[in-house]
């Protein structure tokens, strides 16, 4: 365990080094968030009703703003990192280490995620909390939200790792990555909350693992029906755990098969 905590620490240090980048991200997010705010204000003003699909304007804003913050917090560049290290040959050095490669990557990124939680997610959360004046209830839901976010982080990692493994088979990183990104952003509810989806489409989307990344934690935080302690919180958390375990097995198997046929140029 000590070697992995060392990796986590290294990740934290690495993230701390680029403070300028963090400031730019926060600044950029502020502009981006005003864009979202204005857009949805106009959308709700045109709707004529206060509540659409069970979501009020402030619900939608909290949902989308925190989805963006979660996106920054969970963002991983495993696909890019790995394809670059395959092309340069540096991946061999990591594979030779007496550590499991996937676990190595996980703890490296975990360190960064811990850091980005404090630098981007927490400030955004506090701002949103005060701006929406009590629309976010503070109670046990915060604890469940945190548990759900950790599960989301793991689901996200396994999906990333699965996609990164594809890069062992092809050099077309850009194409693979853009497909993954567009699918995840749509089906996880990061661009439009899942409740807005047409009924039939939504049922299909809810059977996919992507909702575990943004939709589930955010609905738990907002205490929407179906996500509270009395109405199915445990089912939702259980679903996250199941997806987590399932994806872990699948992505692990795919990795084990693929790594045998890796070809590295020099290195």
């Amino acid at each position, binding site marked *: 365990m000590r070697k992995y905590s060392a990796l986590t620490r290294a990740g934290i240090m690495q993230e701390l080094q*680029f403070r*300028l*980048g963090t400031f*730019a*991200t926060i600044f*950029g997010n502020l*502009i*981006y968030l*005003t*864009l979202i705010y*204005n*857009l949805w*204000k*106009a*959308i709700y*003003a*045109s*709707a004529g009703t206060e509540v*659409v*699909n069970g979501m009020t304007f402030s619900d939608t804003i909290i949902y989308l703003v925190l989805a963006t913050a979660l996106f920054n917090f969970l963002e991983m560049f495993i696909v890019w990192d790995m394809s670059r290290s395959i092309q340069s040959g540096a991946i061999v050095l990591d594979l030779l280490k007496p550590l499991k490669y996937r676990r190595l990557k996980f703890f490296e990124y975990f360190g960064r995620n811990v850091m980005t939680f404090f630098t981007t997610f927490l400030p955004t959360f506090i701002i949103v909390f005060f701006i929406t004046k009590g629309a976010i209830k503070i109670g046990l839901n915060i604890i469940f939200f945190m548990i759900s976010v950790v599960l989301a982080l793991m689901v996200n990692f396994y999906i990333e790792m699965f996609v990164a493994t594809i890069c062992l088979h*092809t*050099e*077309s990183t*850009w*194409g*693979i*990555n*853009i*497909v993954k*990104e*567009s*699918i995840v*952003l*749509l089906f996880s509810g990061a*661009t*439009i909350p899942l409740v*807005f*989806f*047409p009924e039939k*489409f939504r049922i299909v989307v809810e059977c996919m693992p992507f909702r575990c990344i943004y939709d589930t934690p955010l609905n738990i935080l907002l205490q929407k029906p179906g996500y509270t302690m009395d109405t199915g919180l445990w089912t939702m958390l259980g679903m996250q755990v199941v997806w987590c375990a399932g994806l872990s097995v699948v992505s692990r198997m795919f990795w084990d098969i693929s790594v045998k046929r890796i070809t590295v140029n020099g290195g």
Partner: protein
Amino acid sequence: MSETMELRAKRGLAFYARIYRKVLAQDLKSKMSYRADFIISTFGMIMTNAVGFISFYILFQNFPSINGWNYYEMLFFYGFSLIALTPLQCLFDNNWSLRYAVESGDFIKYCFRPINVFFYFISEVFDVKGLGQLAFGIMVLVYAWIHLAIPVTVITMVQLVLLLITASLFMIAIMNFAAATCFWIQRSGYVMVLMFRFKDYAKYPASIFDGLFKIIFTFVIPIAFIAYYPALVILRPDEIPLLSYLSPALGMLFFYLSYKFWMLGARKYNGTGS
């Protein structure tokens, strides 16, 4: 060296067009040797556009109009923005590798040729998959055009082409500025990533903003000019705002400024010493 410097000043458009054709042919040849990559990238491009369209469609299932703009008018902005963003994707994609070239020192090779550095660097890559976006954009625009029953005349056609070309300059200029920051700031990739995200919001009418933000998205990060202002000329010919008339000139001015900024960085560049 002094001789080549003199030559540089005299070279005209025909010279650069000939060079561009040659560089382009080389680039396409090397791309063709990675057929799988080409197919996967094109598929990726179609996927992002399809997903963008689906989100748009879902939104309008819940809200029939936004700020007085109906579904087809919004589609018109959408298609317009996709087409206006194509030149950036196809012709200026090499800006994404600028920071790697600058950090590794490879950028110095561009400084030793007797042609314009900006031109040489940018011409090196032509991104074929951007054409998929163009096709998608044209489909959306034509579909919206038919449903809105806008007359097809010589004047509207000329306006459309002219407006699309000048509108494309705004996002190109934004990305030139963003890419050129790497001459001053190390690891400035996040600036480009950040700016690139704004292009997704070009498809919404700028009338949703008020006060300060209208000014920001019009003059500081001018995404309102990518689709909204130019498209008004065709969508609302009876009440065209002044900014729509000015948009071609502003586009050229903005592009020129970004070019100057880029060149300022390039001139400051000394290599890494290796």
